[in-house]
């Protein structure tokens, strides 16, 4: 932190956020990352619905989905829910 932390007199009550969460790249928490087999994927979009972090997005212009690894925490729910087993969780460093 380069900026000075604020005193209790300077901050909004009730922990009202002073910064947007967009700036916090929570994707760096993950150990495993989802990898998709494009042949098996039917674009059913169940993974988009199930992702608890909204880190899988439907891109209509591409007609395809996209993982946002900046915010994906690697929970593996998408892999678990995928009806065609198109998503597998791989160790990030591999």
């Amino acid at each position, binding site marked *: *932190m380069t900026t000075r932390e604020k005193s*209790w007199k300077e901050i909004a*009550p*009730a*922990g*009202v*956020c*002073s910064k947007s*969460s967009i700036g916090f790249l929570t994707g760096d928490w993950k150990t495993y990352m989802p990898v998709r087999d494009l042949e098996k994927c039917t674009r059913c979009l169940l993974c988009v619905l199930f992702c608890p972090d909204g880190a899988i997005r439907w891109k209509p212009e591409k007609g395809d989905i996209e993982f946002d690894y900046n915010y994906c925490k690697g929970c593996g729910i998408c892999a678990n829910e995928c009806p065609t087993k198109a998503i597998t969780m791989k160790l990030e460093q591999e």
Partner: protein
Amino acid sequence: MKSIAKQEVMALNGDEAVAYAAKQSDVDVVAAYPITPQTIIVEKFSEYVANGEVQTEFICTESEHSALTACLAASVTGARTFTASASAGLALMHEMLFVTSGCRAPVVMAIANRALSAPLNIHGDQSDSMAERDSGWIQIYVENAQEVYDSIIQAFRIAEDLNVLLPVIVGLDGFTLSHTLENVKVLVDDVVQRFVGTRQLPDVLTHEGKKVPFKLDPESPMTMGPIALPDYYFEFKRQQEEAMKNALAVIQKVNSEYATVSGRSYGNGLVDVYCLEDAEVAVVCVGSTAGTIKTVVDELRQEGVKAGLLRIRTFRPLPVEEIRRALENVKAVAVMDKSMSFGGNGGAVFHEVRHVLYDAKAHPYVVNYIYGLGGRDTSPQELRAIYEDLQRILQTKRVEKPMQYLGLRE
């Protein structure tokens, strides 16, 4: 001075007085779950809703935890919110009590004070709300049904004050007050509505750098009560302590403003002193027992005993200066606790009153009486015996038992 508003006398028990005050206070949302001895409050209020006498959104929840969660959620959108509970119900709210005060949501809650299980007991003592004294809620304890009516109306003003923004518990002794019919003077609806006014909201700076009213609103999104790590959590807690300190002045102001409207006030709103000016022996208590003690004091005064009473009306924030000032010339003080702090060597009120007197110029003798647990009656004779104990302490200059049980079979 404004003239006192026209009032009607109604026969109400404590619970009905609470419901009637909430009905007149323009409450937007009530979410509640019934539990003895609070049930009548919820029943009565749901009647008002069913009869179309109020515009309130009434939410029947499946538990007290959910009831307070719904109140919190409603309150942070800017709604005026009310609930009521007791005993195990309040205990089930425990987690959400802290979330509500931490979110600075000015929810008002009536607690019909009742013992906690086990063994199961539905009767009155103050174990339930005393156990929540560190949850960040303002706590006001009343002496009778009239005071609970007046205090509920005042509570909205106190909670919603921009220098406070804290939830308020108004405690009324279970059955002794909740189920006992009294003559209660009620103000007319528009006088109450004018007194409580419309809820105001402070401006806060959001993550987008916009200054917006402090409420959840899709038009100006904000996040409140999210994670605060070791770098900021402490600062938010310090803010809550400041709000509590501010409440001391606000409670007094609201008490005196209410007096100009209704003709009624309760001491200075924080403490209610009775015959203390020249008192040598005094009892300190919280709640309805004060009524009986006043009768005992009157008798003792006729016999020439310099007896007095201090009723702590506002227990949170603790009126430290007022308690010290009220007791500094008294020679022996008995503090009454209607709850236990097991293994704590005395009850909560005793601990705190004695802590306040540590900084007094003259140190009076301070002893503790645990009484009335599980709704056990406390007679005028027993209360008189406390004053006799205090006189004995003054004569012998010796405290034999710093903590005693009143009305317990040994």
